[in-house]
């Protein structure tokens, strides 16, 4: 790796090699997606030969378009449904967990912290298997399908909320709450009035991350699905991607991507507004990446 540095004398100057490297990476990373998006607008059935432009696979085709093919549209709805449930439950739950874990000093605190982090290093197939078995053999009142999948999504994304909020908490420090308590507020009031507003960026970032994770989740949704009616978009992509997919599959994936970007953009704008209201400067994107990078 040191060889890269040998390519130029001045370390503060322009590193040509690194620029090229990064550019190549970005191309390699993003261009296949752009190509896939291009073919979602294809007029013909091919997914690799350009055949004109049309919205056929989105709305036009009466049998195979995303709008009309019930398998595809139900997958989209199921993904959105699960993502919404995941965000609504995981963010508050994770917020409380993170705040509690950071301040808790007594017995059991360390263990609880460990448990909260354990899902981060657990492969999804392990979690999917474990959840499938528990719902079939023990907690049988939870049917497979949306309830089971929702629980799986929440359990899997909880750790990300915890990490993001904890990171923010450690950076903020306890002075604001202490000041509030000195002024006579109860713990709960200090939390609500002093700390929570400062955590808004972290909350927004967590919501965006949970949404993206949930929309992207494959293994848990597949294992806990009750059949095609509760398949999510990634599960449908996997199932049909190996047979004779039409560009409708690309269209489905593009719609999912667009929705995720829209949600992220909305959150971003909110965050920027909050920061501007507080007079904070600096790159919003940078701060987001910093919290996301943990």
């Amino acid at each position, binding site marked *: 790796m040191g060889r890269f540095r040998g390519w130029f004398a001045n370390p503060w100057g322009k590193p040509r090699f690194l620029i090229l490297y990064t550019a190549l990476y970005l191309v390699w990373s993003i261009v296949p997606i752009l190509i896939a998006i291009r073919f979602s607008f294809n007029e013909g059935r091919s997914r690799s030969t350009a055949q004109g432009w049309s919205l056929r696979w989105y709305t036009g085709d009466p049998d195979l378009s995303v709008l009309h093919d019930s398998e595809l549209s139900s997958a989209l709805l199921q993904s959105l449904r699960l993502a919404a449930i995941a965000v609504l439950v995981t963010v508050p739950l994770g917020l409380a967990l993170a705040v509690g874990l950071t301040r808790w*000093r007594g017995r059991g605190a360390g263990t609880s912290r460990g448990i909260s982090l354990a899902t981060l290093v657990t492969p999804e197939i392990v979690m999917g*298997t474990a959840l*499938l078995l528990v719902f079939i053999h023990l907690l049988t009142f939870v049917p497979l399908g949306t309830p089971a999948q929702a629980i799986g999504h929440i359990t899997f994304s909880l750790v990300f909320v915890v990490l993001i909020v904890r990171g923010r908490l450690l950076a903020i420090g306890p002075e604001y709450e202490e000041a509030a308590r000195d002024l006579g507020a109860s713990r709960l009031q200090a939390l609500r009035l002093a700390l929570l507003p400062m955590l808004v960026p972290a909350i927004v970032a967590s919501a965006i991350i949970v949404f993206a994770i949930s929309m992207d989740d494959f293994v848990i949704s597949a294992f806990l699905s009750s059949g095609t009616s509760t398949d999510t978009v990634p599960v449908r992509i996997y199932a049909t991607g190996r047979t004779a997919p039409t560009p409708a599959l690309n269209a489905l994936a593009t719609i*999912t991507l667009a929705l995720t970007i829209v949600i992220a953009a909305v959150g971003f704008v909110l965050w920027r507004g909050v920061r501007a209201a507080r007079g904070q400067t600096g790159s919003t994107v940078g701060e987001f990446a910093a919290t996301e*990078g943990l």
Partner: protein
Amino acid sequence: MSEPKRGVKADRAGDGFWAGLALPGVVWLCVFFLLPFYVVLCVALGSVDPILLTPRPEWNPLEWNTSAFEFVFDGLFTPGAAFETVFVRTFFYVAIATTLSLLIAYPVAYYVARYGGRWKGLLLMGLIAPFFISYLMRMLAWINLLQDDGWVNKVLIWLGILDAPHNWLDGRASSVILGLVYGYVPFMILPLYAFLDRIDRRLLEAARDLGASPFEAFRMVTLPLSMPAILAGIAIIALPMFGDYYTPDLLSGAPQTSLIGNQINLYIRGGQQEPVGAALVVALMLFLTVLMGYYLYATVRSQRRLGG
């Protein structure tokens, strides 16, 4: 995790309050994360219904039936046996894919952190974008390009490197490993970037002032300082990669590239021997716990060497 070093007095009196706040989350994780692991254990140590061939978990430790575990450990530790072969193969694929990912992620993260400048926001958006694109969609896009009539073949033929379309999806290890790299590398770049961004430039300036060449400054200051981030990045992508089964399925479909995740999938979802599948899951988790332990040890050690 460590406490914040801000000279703060711990709020021990409020412990009940804080514990209470954390309680719902902890209970949730106990019920839906820890408890399922116990069920996996009980299925692995249970029996099989002779009529329906469905597993019967054994809740009572005194009646645990170890035959599934014996079968799995036998297969794992006998050289040349199925489980051992697959496990070793998985280990190598993950090791190679992780190393390649590191070689790709580090320079990119370094460039954006140190030389991003005005373009930083835009570059970061490019780095964050893969998070919002479904993993499967990215894989699908690649499969599309790798097909016989896909663009990879078209470009290579046009460039004259190939005479005829090459069957990239015929079950070769390189396609699977590159697929893993493609899928997981974004998850390594962001933590690396976040860390490298925070390294104090003054430390590097000081090193240069003391006469170090750029290479030496990098080797003796930047690299050691970024060790915790490198280890973290490795942990973040290698551990989930061990459970990956859909990447080989999509990019190959041949038995010689199947990973331990495929075997687990076969036994759990495909057959009537779920105890064996459950035992495989337990074995995998034990292995990953060992790896996790090594990672923690390495992190602590690298931090000590930094003089902390």
